[in-house]
């Protein structure tokens, strides 16, 4: 009995229907998301803004298949995610999604080349091809000659670029970035964001989680989360007009 009809042509790649997430920490349940309905089309660049505790990260975790909704449904490219096994979710994270974190989240003991290889290792890409693709990905972010270095030997901006190379190396369709410039100075942050602008042009679906309106301005569409609900889905004021600071 097929519950979900095949995705119609031009359907959104991300489709959340009344998604709730409740964290049950003892007696007091925490409602992180209270019914989010959201559609994101293929190739769209979107920013999610909102204060701390508004549910931004939870939403990103669910979209990234790191977590599953407590109720509601999440269709990823038309496929309902809630009925997937942990193994299938891992496969989706590996193949379809690239993560970029505020804290870079590189493996500290592995060379940056190996860090970039990791997603391909879990995808079962053979060694030689992996090496080539990892070097190519590092070259694209301008770090080819640093391949043997450890993350601790790089600056913050360089680390974030390694993380971007790693997120893209398996050619995912969706890129999720959680405060990607949060730990960087303004200049470096701008460079990283320019990289994102490039990516949007390359057809990736990009979702940017931030509390910084200047960062959000890089996305065509901005939604604001407040207390686990979408407050507005409006497009932001143009950044040039000096949009509201977060």
């Amino acid at each position, binding site marked *: 009995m097929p519950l979900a009809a095949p995705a119609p042509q031009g359907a959104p790649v991300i489709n959340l229907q009344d998604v709730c997430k409740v964290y049950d920490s003892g007696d007091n349940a925490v409602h992180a998301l209270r019914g989010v309905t959201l559609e994101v089309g293929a190739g769209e660049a979107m920013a999610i803004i909102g204060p701390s505790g508004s549910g931004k990260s939870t939403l990103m*975790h669910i979209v*990234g298949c*790191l*977590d599953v909704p407590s109720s509601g449904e999440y269709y990823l490219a038309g496929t309902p995610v809630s009925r997937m096994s*942990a*193994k299938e979710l*891992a*496969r989706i*994270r*590996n*193949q379809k999604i690239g*993560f970029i*974190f505020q804290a870079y*989240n*590189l*493996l500290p*003991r*592995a060379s940056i080349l190996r860090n970039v290889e*990791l*997603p391909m*290792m*879990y*995808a*079962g890409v053979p060694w030689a091809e992996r090496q080539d693709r990892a070097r190519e990905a590092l070259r694209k972010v301008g770090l080819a000659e640093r391949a043997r270095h450890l993350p601790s030997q790089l600056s913050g901006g360089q680390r974030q670029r390694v993380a971007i190379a*790693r997120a893209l190396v*398996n050619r995912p369709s969706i890129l999720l970035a959680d405060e990607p410039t949060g730990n960087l100075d303004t200049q470096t942050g701008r460079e990283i964001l320019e990289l994102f602008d490039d990516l949007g042009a390359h057809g990736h679906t990009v979702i940017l989680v931030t509390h910084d309106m200047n960062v959000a301005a890089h996305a065509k569409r901005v939604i604001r989360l407040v207390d686990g609900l979408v407050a507005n889905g409006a497009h932001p004021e143009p950044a040039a007009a000096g949009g509201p600071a977060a």
Partner: protein
Amino acid sequence: MTLRESVVDALVDVRVNKGRTILQTLGVILGVASLVAVQGLSDAGRRQALKFFSELGGLRKILVLNKPIKERVQTARQLASDGLTWGDVQAIKRDVPYATHVDPIATQDLMVRSPSYLKERTIHGATPDYQAVYKFFPARGRFLIDDDMASMARVCVLGDSAARLYFGNEDPLGKTVFIGDVGFRVVGVMRRKEFFFNEGDQNALEWMNRLTIVPITAMYARFTGDPKKRVNYINVMVDKVDNNRKATLEIKKVLFRRHGGVEDFEVYNREERLRQQQSQGQVFDITFLVTGIVSLIVGGIVIMNIMLASLRDRIREVGIRKALGARGFDVAVQFLVESILVTSIGGLAGLPLGMAFAGAITVLIGQPAVITPQMALVSVVASVATGLFFGLYPAVKAARLSPVEALRYE
């Protein structure tokens, strides 16, 4: 992720945390060393025992002994049974298919007189099969032959020491020795038998060098005059070690029948005795075995604790790996590979240490040191098993971490 990748990651981790690895491996090193030493020592013991038995005719030998009946009031049947006799020997020869040699022995203490000797000694009456059964052959002259049996000949064969005792440095061949006042011609002097369990021990086979052997028929005719021709014990040699058990059963059946259902005999199988002896002489082995296993358990618990402690440092790593597509299985394999790698390093270090243990102990007890391929096998199996067993809990724990919580962990 392939196993090879996990090994690479584990190697990196082990190299980065040298101090931690040394702590983790210590228990495994000692445990494996103990087990390797046990292997070597018990193997040395087994070889020694086998060598001794093969000097005495190998494992194909079955010994049949008289068993005195203990009950004070005996049944008529028990009283009617004569114990082991010449007739039993013939019956075994005839009815036990696997028996190749059957040699009965009757002993009698008699005065022995020669030009330079006069003393009571135990004289052995035997048959030509004695040679095969004890792997005991003449150095000069000959052993008893069938003609000697038939004619109840007054001939005797002397062990090397006995010949020296009776005749000093003179050649005993052809000379006469008086046994119970009957003159016996010396027809053969046996080759010396020697076996030393440990260096500096006495010759465990010296009793054979001191033997004076006469035809068992002459023994009956000249000395005992026993109409029932009783014997003290019977050695039966079978064709193959594999047939020991079957032959033992057959012998019991034949004797049971001939003794009217009275079990006044015992049948010992060499192979079984060797096994029994080994299980008795294993105090050493057991001590080391227990030490080894306890060390491995302690080492394993240390490994488990350190893995669990290091898991706290690595929760974030697990989260990252899961975000990048690692399945729980991948994470578990990675942790298991790491614990097995650590214990394997312990096993590698424990192997030479165990050989040194075994070497030191064999020097102490004066046995030749033994290094066997099984030692390497023991070390590999013990260390891998320890890593697998004690790595399992941390590995499963790591695999079950939720990606979100793992990523959030500070």
